[in-house]
């Protein structure tokens, strides 16, 4: 049964496109949408509704569509909830109906319709009050099966998505008469213009009238000739943000089976516009009456689109139900296409167009409404009656065209914070005084009619040009005005008759649900929306949002203007997660930082771990160690304790600080003093936040009177720099100090172990490393393999150690030279795991202890708080709560049973089963020196517990390990090794 008209439409009838819907094959043409092609093939039932599984058809011809949603494509490209009227037909398209089981025609769960009195508004909220077990076991599984829309693909998306940034003088959203005229005016004045149109053809309503084709084509061609104009069809502007920044999605390859090679599927545009013209048109409104959701009910404007643009007759015999003149155009066009008009039900008592239609032989019933729809699954009969319900007559018809008037598409204007004004003339909200640099034009502000909209668009274009200061504008050709006598539309929202009358077809919200929400106290429009889920679905209530507000207004006994609309927020139309993510997926999710020695680590088999964005070697497995990482970690750590190891420490933050007041500045940042530090010496420094909590630590060296070299922890490098910039620029701008992050400029490596001096002495030229000449904390310049290096005698491991820093480009030759020099001493590269083990043995604090909750005193570092002079955090560190003696203090921990394992995160308790936590284990590792697990912890009472016993409780494993409390320095308590 073909509904395709013999001629007309904007189709390429020479191109036949094959597609399937629910496994059945159909044919359409280039220029069709999935909706128009299915309609042409006589398919009317296309889905089941969300809650009641009612049969649903195609209501609209655009992105307003609430009902005709499908799953598109298969496999990894399957996409749910695609509105059929915006799905451009392509050869091989596969579509599946949604929310039906086992089949669309026979849906078992449509019994929900019979049980619907148990699924009222607020159903979800109410069920949450039932016993939890009932909900989890019975209701949730049932609801999950019965309610919902389509299913997303479970496989990874094979396509890629692009992000694009653009600037323009004028952004025009919408390419109907208003949008085209505005764009043309702006373009002729020399403005850089971007014109976005959600449809695949430019023209909006112009596409429905062959008489306007010349003007449309000429205007589009004139725009296309301008080099500063970007025309973006298939592009939906979805968001209007601050500072005239707008978001749009261009569906680059949605109209193809799959994207061409090297093309994205979709493109996310961030557009910064100096001026904006919103020519987004209007949404035709439904009318709430029983059965207004039945397949065969089509909005009148949509029916005109199917006739004129797609050459499809949506039915054979039609009833038109309207409160306005525009629907008469549909009636006349239907008749012209051979569709019989059973009757026009016009709610208005009289209208000029009604008289004209009667004279043309059409049965117009003024002052009448549709009170019901009959038929099995779709429209077979339509009942028309007087507004008071009298004289009801059931008319045979398979098509019911409905028009409740037109609401300007104000979503974007409202997002830009434009207030909404109520217009009695169109019974709808229109944009008020703009707040940002934008203006609405044409139907988007209630100016209906092609000539009127074009003229309004031209005015908006001129206003944008004037705001830009671009000078005078050229006159452009506009479509001629058509004078026509008319009758104002009459606000009309609902036919009160028996049966379900829907205000939101996608979420199955009825007029009765809105009234129930009102009765139950959800009378604010925002509350009613959430309680009933009205206007919340993918279509955002574009067809029925205002109808719901009108029903609520009546229940409240107030005007719709007083009730208002719920806040409009992005996204105005659904946007895929893929395009939001863009290229930031998988390995491109975040940048990766690699040290200058990364390639060496890779060549030597390092296993890497992430430290922030850095990739750091965790350990270097050797033959025989592949199955047990501990073997590598312990071997590396032993090498440091017994001979010499070398570790890439380039990731530590490095900041070069210079200036006459550099020392004073560091005195104010650190708790200890740096202005007294001799040139050629390093000092360990502790930094607090202004609230008195420990912020960061590291060593800072003095290279010259006015030149310091500072290091931070890897994790805090960026935060410390920001902290310094804040204080230098805003708190003490009078200080003469400049600094710069040089983390990436220097590669640094730590050679540590009793044989570190022996190993390095062979590699280092120009510096005497003898203990007397270069003691602990000395700093000096030298060369290694002919490369310049800076040598720091500092130690994190607790062994004799030297940190060798070199400009990043020399990293490998320097490292290789040290490796070669240390070979005879068994020099061993060690990774972050061994580094962690060594620092726990030594009792040095790191991230686990510097977690933003510990004070200097908590960490046993109170000796580093200078008595004289101001520094960040000094005053608030003295608050009673931060110096309370019961605060947890850093301690060392060792299991009493040498074979027992200690776990970080365990709580310290006095006895097995004791629920009172005295502290916790912050770090734990097996010790290579003590041959048992060791840990650091924070323990209330601190050193008072030394040599006493507690239990480390790990309730997750029901584990209690008896531990002895010790000094945090598990090895070399006297600190002799670093000075050896």
């Amino acid at each position, binding site marked *: 049964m073909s509904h395709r008209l013999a001629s007309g439409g904007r189709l390429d009838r020479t191109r036949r496109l094959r597609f399937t819907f629910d496994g059945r094959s159909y044919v359409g043409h280039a220029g069709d949408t999935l909706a128009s092609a299915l309609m042409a093939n006589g398919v009317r039932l296309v889905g089941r509704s969300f809650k009641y599984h009612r049969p649903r058809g195609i209501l609209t011809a655009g992105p307003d569509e609430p009902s005709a949603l499908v799953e598109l494509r298969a496999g990894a490209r399957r996409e749910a909830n695609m509105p059929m009227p915006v799905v451009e037909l392509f050869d091989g398209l596969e579509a599946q109906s949604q929310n039906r089981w086992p089949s669309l025609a026979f849906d078992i769960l449509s019994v929900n319709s019979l049980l619907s009195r148990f699924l009222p508004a607020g159903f979800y909220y109410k069920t949450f009050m039932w016993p939890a077990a009932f909900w989890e076991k019975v209701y949730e599984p049932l609801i999950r099966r019965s309610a919902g829309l389509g299913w997303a693909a479970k496989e990874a998306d094979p396509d890629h998505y692009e992000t694009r940034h653009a600037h323009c003088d004028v952004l025009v959203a919408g390419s109907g008469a208003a949008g085209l005229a505005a764009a043309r005016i702006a373009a002729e004045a020399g403005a850089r213009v971007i014109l976005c149109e959600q449809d695949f053809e430019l023209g909006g309503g112009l596409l429905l009238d062959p008489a306007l084709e010349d003007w449309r084509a000429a205007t589009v061609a004139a725009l296309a000739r301008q080099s500063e104009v970007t025309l973006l069809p298939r592009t939906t502007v979805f968001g209007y943000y601050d*500072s005239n920044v707008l978001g749009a999605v261009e569906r680059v390859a949605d109209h193809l089976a799959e994207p061409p090679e090297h093309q994205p599927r979709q493109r996310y545009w961030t557009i910064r516009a100096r001026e904006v013209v919103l020519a987004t048109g209007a949404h035709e409104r439904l009318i709430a009456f029983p059965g207004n959701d039945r397949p065969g009910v089509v909005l009148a404007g949509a029916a005109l689109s199917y006739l004129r643009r797609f050459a499809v007759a949506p039915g054979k015999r039609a009833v038109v139900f309207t409160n306005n003149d525009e629907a008469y155009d549909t009636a006349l066009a239907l008749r012209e296409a051979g569709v019989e008009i059973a009757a026009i039900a016009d709610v208005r008592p009289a209208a000029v167009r009604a008289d004209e239609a009667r004279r043309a032989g059409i049965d117009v019933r003024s002052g009448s409404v549709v009170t019901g729809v009959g038929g099995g699954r779709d429209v077979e009969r339509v009942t028309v009656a007087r507004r008071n319900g009298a004289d009801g007559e059931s008319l045979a018809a398979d098509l019911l065209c409905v028009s409740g008037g037109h609401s300007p598409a104000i979503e974007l204007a409202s997002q830009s914070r434009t207030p909404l004004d109520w217009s009695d003339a169109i019974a709808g909200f229109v944009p008020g005084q703009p707040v940002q640099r934008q203006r609405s034009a044409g139907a988007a502000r209630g100016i209906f009619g092609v000539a009127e909209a074009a003229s309004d668009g031209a005015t908006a274009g001129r206003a944008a040009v004037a705001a830009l200061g671009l000078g005078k504008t050229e006159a452009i050709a506009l479509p001629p005005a058509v004078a026509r006598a008319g009758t104002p539309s009459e606000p009309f929202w609902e036919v009160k008759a028996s049966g379900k009358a829907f205000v939101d077809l996608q979420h199955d919200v009825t007029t009765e649900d809105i009234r129930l929400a009102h009765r139950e106290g959800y009378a604010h429009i925002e509350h009613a929306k959430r309680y009933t889920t009205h206007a919340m679905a993918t279509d955002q209530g574009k067809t029925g949002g205002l109808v719901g507000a009108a029903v609520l207004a009546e229940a409240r006994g107030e005007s719709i203007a007083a009730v208002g609309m719920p806040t409009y927020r992005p996204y105005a139309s659904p946007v895929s997660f893929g395009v939001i993510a863009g290229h930031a997926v998988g390995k491109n999710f975040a940048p990766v930082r690699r040290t200058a020695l990364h390639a060496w680590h890779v060549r030597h088999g390092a296993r890497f771990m992430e430290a922030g964005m850095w990739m750091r070697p965790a350990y270097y497995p050797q033959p025989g160690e592949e199955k047990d990482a501990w073997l590598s970690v312990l071997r590396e750590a032993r090498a440091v304790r017994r001979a010499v190891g070398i570790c890439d420490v380039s990731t530590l933050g490095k900041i070069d600080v210079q200036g006459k007041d550099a020392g004073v500045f560091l005195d104010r940042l650190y708790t200890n003093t740096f202005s007294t530090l001799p040139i050629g010496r390093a000092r360990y420094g502790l930094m607090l936040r202004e609230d008195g909590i420990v912020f960061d630590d590291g060593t800072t060296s003095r290279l010259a009177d006015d030149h310091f070299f500072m290091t931070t922890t890897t994790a805090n490098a960026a935060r410390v720099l*920001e902290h310094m910039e804040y204080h230098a*620029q805003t708190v003490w*701008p009078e200080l003469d100090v400049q600094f710069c992050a040089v983390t990436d400029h220097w590669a640094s490596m730590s050679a540590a172990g009793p044989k570190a001096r022996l190993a390095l002495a062979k590699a280092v030229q120009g510096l005497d490393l003898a203990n007397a000449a270069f003691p602990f904390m000395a700093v000096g310049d030298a060369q290694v393999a002919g490369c310049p290096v800076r040598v720091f005698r500092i130690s994190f491991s607790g062994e004799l150690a030297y940190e060798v820093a070199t400009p990043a480009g020399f990293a490998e030759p320097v490292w290789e030279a040290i490796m070669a020099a240390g070979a005879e001493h068994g020099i061993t590269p060690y990774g972050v795991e061994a580094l962690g083990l060594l620092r726990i043995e030594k009792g040095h604090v790191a991230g686990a202890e510097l977690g933003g909750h510990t004070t200097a005193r908590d960490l046993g570092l109170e000796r580093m708080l200078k008595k004289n002079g101001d520094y960040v955090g000094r005053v*608030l560190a003295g608050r009673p709560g931060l110096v309370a003696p019961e605060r947890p203090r850093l301690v060392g921990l060792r299991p009493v049973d040498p074979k027992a394992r200690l776990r970080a995160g365990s709580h310290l308790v006095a006895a097995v089963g004791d629920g009172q936590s005295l502290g916790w284990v912050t770090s734990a590792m097996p010790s290579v020196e003590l041959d048992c697990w060791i840990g650091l912890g924070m323990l209330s009472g601190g050193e008072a517990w030394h040599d006493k016993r507690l239990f480390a409780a790990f309730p997750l494993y029901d584990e209690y390990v008896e531990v002895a409390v010790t000094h945090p320095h598990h090895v070399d308590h006297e600190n002799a090794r670093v000075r050896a």
Partner: protein
Amino acid sequence: MHRIDCPWCGVRDEIEFAYRGDATVKRPEAGAGVDAFYAYVYERGNPRGWHIEWWHHAAGCRQWIKVLRHTLTHEIRATAKAGDTVTAPKP
């Protein structure tokens, strides 16, 4: 998304900046006592209206700048260098 007119770089996207907060608080003198520092660190107005605030051009010139922003409408009316004075309009 805001577009912020950095006095050093020109108009840039908000994503380049990091927000800190009230730019009218002053770090007390060293001897001002715990209450003054407590106020400096913790006590903030929560105005419905104009707010002078610190933004850090972290992905740009690394300068801290002052921004006069309306907390209700998000309008940014002025920006200034750290050392310059910004005056909020009368409410």
